[in-house]
């Protein structure tokens, strides 16, 4: 029994290593527009999506430009795929409509923008 657990832990460890190795060369940079990027409240959702995205090496959030700059491994992913994943987690991008169920998990202040409703800035968006 303990052996089984050990094997599992090693397997988990290997997964981690293979992830780390992806930070190699062959990278490209893309700027993904996020029209619904209303405030800092959306940072966590964007980052949590990119962190689990295959082929994404690093990223920079640009709240003022309403975009995120992503460095990714060529051949592992494409900006279109990344946009799809963001949309699946409720983030509206230039080309993808967000998953309505995921929008409800966004901070309340970011939800109208994610739905594409353009209302004025909201004061209590934290």
């Amino acid at each position, binding site marked *: *029994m*303990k052996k*089984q*657990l050990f094997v*599992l*832990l090693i397997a*988990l460890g290997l*997964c*981690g290593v293979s992830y780390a190795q992806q930070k190699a060369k062959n990278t490209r940079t893309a700027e993904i527009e996020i029209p619904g990027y209303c405030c800092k*409240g959306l940072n*966590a959702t964007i*980052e*949590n999506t990119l*962190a*689990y*995205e*295959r082929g994404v090496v690093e990223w920079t959030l640009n709240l003022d430009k309403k975009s995120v700059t992503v460095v990714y491994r060529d051949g592992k992913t494409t900006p279109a795929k990344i946009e799809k994943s963001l949309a*699946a*987690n409720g983030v509206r991008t230039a080309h993808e409509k967000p*998953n309505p*169920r*995921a929008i*409800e*998990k*966004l*901070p*309340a*202040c970011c*939800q*109208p923008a994610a739905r594409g*409703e353009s*209302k*004025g*800035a*909201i*004061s*209590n*968006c934290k």
Partner: protein
Amino acid sequence: MRTSTPFVSLLITIVLLAFASPLLAQKVQGVVVDANSHAPLPGARVQWLGTLRGTVCDNAGRFSLPRQAGDTTLVVGLMSYGNDTVKVTTESVEVALAPLSTALKAVSIRKRRKNTIHKMTDVHPTEVITVEGLRGLACCNLGESFENSATVDVGYSDAVSGSKQIQLLGLTGVYSQMLLENVPFLRGLSAPFGLGYVPGQWMESISVSKGVATVKNGYDAITGTINLEYEKPLKGDRFTLNVYENTDLKSEATAKFNHRFNERLATGLLLFGTYNARRTDHIGHDGFSDYPLQQQFNVVNRWDYEAPSGFHSQTLFNYIHEERLGGDMRFVSSMRGSDSIYGFGGTTDRFHFFTKNGFMLSKTASFGSQVSATWFRQSAYYGLSDYHGEEKDLYVSLLVNAEVSGGHTLDYGVSFRYEDAAEALRSQPWLSAPVTSFGDEISLREVVPGLFGQYTFRYGDDFNATAGVRYDYNSHYLRHLVTPRLHFRWRIAHRWVLRGSAGLGYRTPHVIAENFGLLASGRELHLNAPIRMEEAWNTGVNLSRKIDLGDDRELTFSVDYFHTGFRNQAVVDLDQDAYKVFIYNLEGRSYSNVVQADVNVEPFEGFTVSLAGKINDVRCEYNGKLMRKPYTSYWKGLLVLSYHTRFEKWRFDLTTQLNGPQRLPLNKGTLQGEAPAYLYMLGQVTRRFKHFELYAGVENLTGHVQETPVIGADAPFSQAFDASVVYAPLMGRLFYVGLRFNLL
């Protein structure tokens, strides 16, 4: 109420404005909207923080409020939205309020994820175990979900049935009230084993409030309230799957499906199954299996409807079937009735239903109704003792909540409960006479109509108090019951909160079901007079402090003291004779004093430490002698360490409990007097991937177990037998792995 409230609010607003008129030089205008729909919120309250100066939004959600020097922050609130504070720097603001249900949800998603939340705004000292906290435990069921909480203690009822019981404030869980989404749940006969009927993965959160509850949910809830929230179909993910397997070959699977027909109507299906196919005898090596063979199937179907008008309806159906088989390793179910091989068997069926419906009567008043019904049947045998329990209950409650004017709220309503519980206990071989002086069947039929009212005063965020009283008539005891309850919360200084509560509570004891573990012993049951209703006062104070450590990290500290004093109790006296148990009405004193301190801190990002300590002083007069209550730890220490890497790809949880010594009742074993303190540790590693997560963990890391779980195991059909003396873990070191899959 319906017509007068807006008028009263308007009047108050006018009065407030009149007072403020000399200062009208400066003002703030704005609009309050729903954060989800962006629709204006007429009737929302807007008030300057720390003052009584405020107003109510008009039909378009607009407001205008004079501003004085020092007015920097607005408190904005609406009944089903809760309060939010907004710093105001400009002359016009737009405030988006999130409905309460989503606001609560947002806490666990958006904010730094916390395992437990100590609420600062609630009038009760409340500890919320979140879905995040539950993820760090392999909580197979509710009984295993409290391992990171110092408030609730969990112990086994006996060494053969494998069932667990909780303690709150040093008293068994039956003195607290279990609620499922604020509807009374697991009452009466199903209370003692109920913890096993709630799968851990179904729950969204567990709130544990110490001290008497408000009067809304009945006259019980003496030591506290445990409210469970299942996943809501309108909010939940489409599909979730959890599978679990441990090294004793116990398997569990949970599946949750949510389907949304449209914005308003959704249904959810929750499924759970557990199968424990192997018996082991690692503990005691006495020929008795450590844990019974167990099979459980549990299903919930629920429907939620939410209309934009504010009408909200929730209906839930739950069915459970469970079978257990334990005792001697050689025992199979066909041997039932054997007087040479000791067996334990139990079959439980339980059907539970509730429907909750609510709507707004006006901008400031709401109406809610609750109807719940349960049918429960349990058939069990311990050796040659047969137990059969059957229960039907129906509960109806109608409630109106009305904000009379800013800061003053009234709740009032009526309730009705019907409960029919029949228990039969037969054929203990060492007894020729019936178990009790009034036969071997105990039936109890209660009709309890009641009405209640409570008044809440709120002064901004600084002070709130609730005073309530309810009147009920209990047809079984022919008693008129008056239940007063009082609560307050006072913010004595910035981030310091003082709370207090006091109240009287009553309970109908079910002496056999609640002492089920005793059936696993050769003790002769002496129950010679009818047991009256249990009655107790509970008072408590709590002081909480939050300190900002910057960078969104904080330290919370809380200390509380609770006293429970019984006016009557069903006393279970194990100390007169090791071969007998006497159950009688309290004569003399019975009380519990509990002091607890908790510290929660996040020393650096991703790492949280919770440290808690508790002292229990629980005593009762047994046959004229004041003694400590058996099986209650004198003290408890708890350390919970939790660390996660960035984005929670890896998560590590380690819990260490130090359980203090406990008094043992007079028994036939070799250990008398006091059971020693022991250490109990558990840990888990979780690795998260894009669509699923894997976890592996260990329970009872130190492997400390009770040396002799079954006294007299070689002669189970004699009076020398006793498997009810349980003071340490009955499960050795145990490893497990599991997988959770989630489809948004």
